[in-house]
């Protein structure tokens, strides 16, 4: 079996604080893989270690390996921009570039990375990305309007479209529905199940119900340690660790 991403003996420190403690796991292709855990357990950090977005934080130090297609992204001579282009990322707070139009938000990545040859190709790519993100019908007449005019849920789907336009293999999602109302949240969750056909999705959530609803595999992270990992149905019905059990039963904050 070939894996979408392999994490081996990953450790992360912020200054002296050991945030991620020797975490290893593998994610198969075309699944939704959820990383769940109480807030502060390090799951957002773990996610950012996978596409080296953690490099932006000058205090963070990473040890261990993360492999995509067998290439260790922390290896020498690996171009960090290449690494990031393999991933699309969606953040906790919907963060479209507020000064750019809806169209420009999606077009920016492909344009800067030279993914398209001409304007018509770009138009087509933007349209496809917006369609895949379930946003096209709502914005097709307002493409030139600023992204800030959209609702929170629409902004988040715009961010998904922005990530998809990069043609990534893997989509990283950092609590993508934490700041959305229930209706907007369920729309995003539906969308995830659809996207699984074409992408591998790694989603971070502090909400065990969400992990149970959307994921195929789930990892439980607690205070920087990987406590349990497995098929979602197994983890939620027969957790092998008492901490996991407490967490999935909602007895832990």
């Amino acid at each position, binding site marked *: 079996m070939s894996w979408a991403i392999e994490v081996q003996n990953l450790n992360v420190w912020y200054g002296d604080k050991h945030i991620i403690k020797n975490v290893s796991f593998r994610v198969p292709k075309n699944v939704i893989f959820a990383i769940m855990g109480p807030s502060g357990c390090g799951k957002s950090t773990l996610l950012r270690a996978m596409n080296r977005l953690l490099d932006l934080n000058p205090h963070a130090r990473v040890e261990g390996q993360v492999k995509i297609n067998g290439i260790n992204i922390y290896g020498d*001579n690996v*171009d*960090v*921009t290449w690494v990031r282009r393999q991933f699309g990322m969606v953040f906790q707070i919907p963060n479209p570039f507020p000064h750019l139009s809806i169209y420009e938000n999606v077009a920016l990545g492909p344009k800067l990375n030279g993914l398209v040859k001409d304007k018509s190709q770009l138009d087509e790519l933007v349209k496809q990305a917006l369609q895949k993100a379930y946003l096209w019908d709502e914005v097709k007449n307002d493409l030139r309007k600023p992204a800030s005019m959209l609702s929170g849920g629409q902004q988040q789907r715009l961010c998904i479209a922005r990530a998809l336009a990069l043609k990534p293999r893997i989509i990283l999602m950092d609590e993508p529905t934490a700041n959305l109302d229930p209706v907007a949240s369920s729309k995003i969750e539906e969308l995830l199940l659809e996207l699984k056909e074409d992408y591998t999705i790694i989603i971070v959530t502090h909400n065990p119900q969400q992990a149970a609803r959307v994921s195929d595999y789930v990892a439980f992270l607690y205070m920087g340690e990987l406590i349990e990992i497995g098929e979602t149905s197994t983890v939620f019905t027969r957790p092998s660790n008492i901490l996991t059990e407490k967490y999935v039963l909602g007895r832990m904050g």
Partner: protein
Amino acid sequence: MMDSEKIFLLFLIVFVSISLLIVAGIVTSLIINSYPIFLRDGFSFIFKSVWNPVKEDYGILPALLGTLISSAIAISIAMPLAISLAIFSAEIAPTSVRGFINSVSDLMASLPSVIYGLWGLYVLAPILNQYIMTPLHQYLGFIPLFSTKPIPTNLFTAGVLLAIMITPFSSSIIREAYNAIPHHLKEAAYSLGMTRWEVIRTLLGYIKSAILAGAFLALGRAMGETVAVAMVVGNTFTLPRSLFDMGYTISSLIANQFPNAEAYSYMMPALYSGALVLFTIGLIINLAGLYWIRRVVTRG
């Protein structure tokens, strides 16, 4: 192979280094160029009152005193005004005009000093002379401070003009600190049944670091100001005996004497060392100001 990130970082560091080199260069240039006169006269040159190019004999005491006197006048007039202006715009004025007041204040702070100088020379100086300095001299002339019969351009006029120039600058520092006071503190003060003035007085105590910072930084500006002062201070090299004496400040001395300096062998070093003295005093005052600013920032 270097990746683009590292090249970019290096690129930025080149510019940062240029900025740092300039700072270092300025300090070095002051030291190198003033060295000859320190070598010849030692520090006595700071405390002598003589400017005799023919004998190559220089001492900057009058200019140093002029700088201290004019900026002392400036700061003592400016601070009450600056605090009042800050409170007025942050607390008293109707909300609808606060933006306008702040704009006017910021515009004053960004007006070129040569415009202040021109106005000071032809408008302010005659008015001060007629309505303030002459009466003060007439009725209170027995007090040494007012003992000289005034003419329009003198240290007092320079001080008042400087006060006008630094008030908005100082005020904006105080205003920002006042506006940054947590709302719950204001509410707490009012809930104790205080009058508005009592609230204001209490809150001013809370931001006294900012007021000190505003005072020090404004004082630094007043001492370094050149052209506006050079236009109204009288440019006369004598030890001041009263506020109404014509005088020099260090920076106006440089501005005035520099064109002649090339012709003599020690005048240039004398002017550079005047600048070094001014720089040193200014540095201490500004560091004090920055220290108090930092206190404002870190406490919040």
